[in-house]
C-alpha cells in the first residue's frame, strides 16, 4: 500500500467516481435536512449505484484501519480516532456506526483529503472490505452470538475471517488473544499483534474452533486438550485498570467511559496507535477525553431524573451493560425491540442472566416488552411494564436511572430525549 498521497485526493478520482461522491454528498445533506437519519448512508447508497467500485477508489492512497467484532466496534473506532488524532492529520471515520459498504463510502467521500481512515465494519462484510480497501490494519475484537436471523453463525464467520486474513500479507492484524474464536480467525495472518483484552462472555467458546474438543481454561490461559491450538503469546495486556505495553511498562487507563469492556477497547486502540507511532502516554491522554460514543454512555436530564443510556444488542453486550450498572437502589429501565437491525428473533433474551436485577426497581419497555417481561418473570425479577421513558421516570421518583436498550429501542429513546452525541 502506498503511504504517500496526492496533495488533494479529490482530483485523483476518476470523473465518474467524482460525480458519484458529489451526488452522494448532496443526497446526504438532503437526507439530514429532511430529518431522516444522520445522512451518513444515503449518500453512499447513491454513489455506489453510480460507481460500484467506489469504496476501492475512495480507499486508494489512504491508510485504512478496519475495526470489527460483535461488540465494541463503534466505541473502539472512536477511541482509535482519538488516539490517532494526536498526529494532527485529518481522519475519515464512520463514527456513527454505519458499517456496511454505503456507510464506509459515505465516510470516505466526506473526508477526501484524509490520509487516514478508521472504519468500523460489519463482521460478515470484513473479507470484502479488506480486499476493497487493502487495509493497513485490521482490528478483531471479539465474536459471540448476535442476531442469528440475519448474521452468519459465528464459527462460519471465524472461518471466513481466517481465510481472508491469511491472504493479506501487508496487513497488520490486531487481535484479542483472549477470545479463542478471534485468535483462531487471526491464526494464519502473516502479521499479528496479540492483545490480552479479556473475554467476559465465555458461552461461545467452550470448544476449540480448530478441532472441536473442549477448551481448557487456566486463569487467563486457554488451550485445547487435543490439538496444538492455544492462546498465543501476547504483547499488550490489560490488567485491572492498567495497560502493560510491549516493553513491559505499565500505565493506568483511567477512562471516563465505564466498564471493563471499554478498557478492553482502549487497550486495542493503544496497540493501533502504536502502529502509527503514537506514544502510549500521549494516546492514553486522548482516550481519556472520550465521554460518550454516538449517544452511548450519555447522561440526559429528564424531569429531574438523570438517565444514563447504555446500548446492548446481544447477550455478551447485555452482560457488559449489566456489569456497569450503578449499584442498587438505582432503578433500571430495559427496552427491547425486534426490528430488522435488532434481529427479528428475541430468543437471545434467554441467554442473558437477569437474576442480578433482583431487588431493584425494574421497568420494561420497547416493542417486545412482553418477551422481556416473560424472561424476567422466569428469572424471578420483579418489574413494571411501562409505555414510555417518561412513565418510568414518573414512577421511579429517583434522581437517576440506568437505561439499557437494544439498537432501535435505543434510537427511539434518543429521539424522545433529544439527540446528543
Amino acid at each position, binding site marked *: 500500500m502506498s503511504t504517500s498521497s496526492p496533495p488533494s485526493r479529490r482530483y485523483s478520482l476518476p470523473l465518474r467516481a467524482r460525480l458519484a461522491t458529489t451526488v452522494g454528498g448532496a443526497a446526504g445533506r438532503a437526507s439530514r435536512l429532511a430529518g431522516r437519519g444522520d445522512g451518513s448512508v444515503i449518500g453512499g447508497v447513491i454513489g455506489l449505484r453510480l460507481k460500484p467500485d467506489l469504496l476501492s477508489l475512495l480507499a486508494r492512497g489512504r491508510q485504512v484501519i478496519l475495526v470489527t467484532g460483535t461488540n465494541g466496534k463503534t466505541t473502539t473506532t472512536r477511541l482509535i480516532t482519538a488516539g490517532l488524532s494526536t498526529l494532527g492529520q485529518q481522519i475519515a471515520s464512520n463514527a456513527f456506526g454505519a458499517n456496511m459498504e454505503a456507510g464506509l463510502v459515505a465516510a470516505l467521500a466526506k473526508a477526501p483529503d484524509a490520509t487516514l481512515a478508521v472504519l468500523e465494519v460489519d463482521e460478515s462484510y470484513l473479507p470484502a472490505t479488506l480486499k476493497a480497501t487493502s487495509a493497513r490494519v485490521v482490528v478483531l475484537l471479539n465474536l459471540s*452470538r448476535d442476531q*442469528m*436471523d*440475519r448474521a452468519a*453463525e*459465528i*464459527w*462460519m464467520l471465524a472461518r471466513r475471517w481466517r481465510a481472508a486474513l491469511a491472504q493479506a500479507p501487508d496487513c497488520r492484524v490486531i487481535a484479542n488473544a483472549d477470545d479463542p474464536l478471534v485468535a483462531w480467525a487471526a491464526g494464519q495472518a502473516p502479521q499479528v499483534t496479540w492483545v490480552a483484552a479479556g473475554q*467476559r*462472555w*465465555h*458461552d461461545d467458546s*467452550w*470448544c476449540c474452533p480448530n478441532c*472441536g474438543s*473442549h477448551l*481448557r*481454561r*487456566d486463569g487467563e490461559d486457554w488451550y485445547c*486438550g487435543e490439538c496444538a491450538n492455544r492462546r498465543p503469546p501476547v504483547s499488550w495486556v490489560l490488567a485491572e485498570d492498567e495497560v502493560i505495553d510491549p516493553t513491559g511498562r505499565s500505565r493506568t487507563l483511567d477512562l471516563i467511559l465505564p466498564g471493563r469492556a471499554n478498557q478492553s477497547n482502549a487497550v486495542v486502540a493503544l496497540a493501533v496507535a502504536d502502529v502509527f507511532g503514537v506514544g502510549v502516554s500521549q494516546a492514553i491522554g486522548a482516550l481519556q477525553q472520550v465521554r460518550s460514543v454516538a449517544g452511548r454512555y450519555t447522561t440526559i436530564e429528564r424531569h429531574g431524573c438523570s438517565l444514563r443510556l447504555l446500548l446492548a444488542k446481544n447477550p455478551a453486550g447485555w*452482560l457488559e451493560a449489566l456489569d456497569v450498572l450503578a449499584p442498587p437502589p438505582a432503578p433500571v429501565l430495559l427496552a427491547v425491540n425486534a426490528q430488522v437491525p435488532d434481529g*427479528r*428473533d*428475541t*430468543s*437471545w*433474551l*434467554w*441467554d442473558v*442472566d437477569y*437474576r442480578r436485577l433482583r431487588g431493584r426497581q425494574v421497568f420494561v419497555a420497547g416493542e417486545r416488552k*412482553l*418477551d422481556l*417481561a*416473560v*424472561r424476567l*418473570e*422466569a*428469572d424471578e425479577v420483579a418489574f413494571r411494564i411501562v409505555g414510555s421513558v417518561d412513565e418510568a421516570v414518573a414512577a421511579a421518583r429517583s434522581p437517576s436511572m440506568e437505561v439499557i436498550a437494544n439498537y432501535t429501542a435505543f434510537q427511539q429513546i434518543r429521539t424522545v430525549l433529544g439527540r446528543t452525541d
Partner: protein
Amino acid sequence: MSEGHGRHRLGSRIPQDPGQQRLPVPGAGLPVPGAGPPGPGAGSGGPSAIRLVWVYPDLLSTYGDRGNLLMLDRRARLRGIGVEIAEVNSDQRVPVDGDIYLLGGGEDLPQILAARRLAADGGLTGAMNRGAVIFAVCAGYQIVGTEFGGAEGEPVPGLGLIDISSGRGDRRGVGEITADVDPALGVERLTGFENHQGVTSRGPEVRPLATVLTGVGNGDGTEGAYCGRVVGTYLHGPALVRNPGLADMLLRWVTGSLPALDPQQEDLVLKLRGERLAAHPASAG
C-alpha cells in the same frame, strides 16, 4: 452461562477445580444417591422431583436454548413439583436416570461432535430405553434421528432414537413459524421462530408433531416429529416459552397428571403468545 441458572446445580458447567478440567468426570450430571431405580420421586429435590437434564449446553446452545429448561422448571415449581437440574457438558457422562432431556441447536461442527460424543456415551439412548422424555430442537432434533446433513451436506449418522432422516435443503428457513399440533396430543397451535436449512422425513412409525400454517418446518408442510416420548421440532431456541401447552405435555408425560395453573401465573406468557400469534396470523397454505 458464566453464572449457572440452575436452582439445583448438579452438573457443573464451568469446572472450577483445574484438576477436574483434565478428565471427564465419571458419573457427572445427576448423582445417584444409591437408591433404587430412580424414576420420578427419587433424588433430593423432594418427594416428587422431576429431573431435567440439559444435554451438552457447551455444544448445543446457540440462541436462547436455556429458555426451555427455565420454562419447564418454572411450570413444574408453580405446581409444587420439585425440580432437579443437571447441565451436562460434552466432556461429562450423560446420566440415564433423568426424566426430561433437552437438546438445543448448534452449528454444523458442534452438531457433528455432539452426535459423535452422544453415540459414544450411550447415556441418552439408555435414558430413552428407560422411558425418559426427550425434547430436541433444531440441530438436536436432527441428532436424535438416524442421519443428518454435515457441513458440506454429507450424511452424518445420528443417534437413531427416532426414525427420522434429515438433509440440507436448498435455502435457509428463517422467520416466525406457526403450526397446528397433531390433535392426538391435545396441544394448542405452535408459535415460534425457525432458523435452519434442514429438511426432515419420517419413517412409518413416526408422526409429524404439527402441520405448518406459516413457515417451513420439515419442508413438506409438516413440522417436527414425535414417536413414543421423543419429540423434535425446528422451532429453535426457547420453543417452550411461547408454547406452554407443549411444556405441560412433556411434564405430564412424567407426572401422569398436572394441576391447572392459577391464570395469574401464566398471564404474561399467554399475552406474549397471543401477541405473537396475532402478529403472524396463519395464512392457510
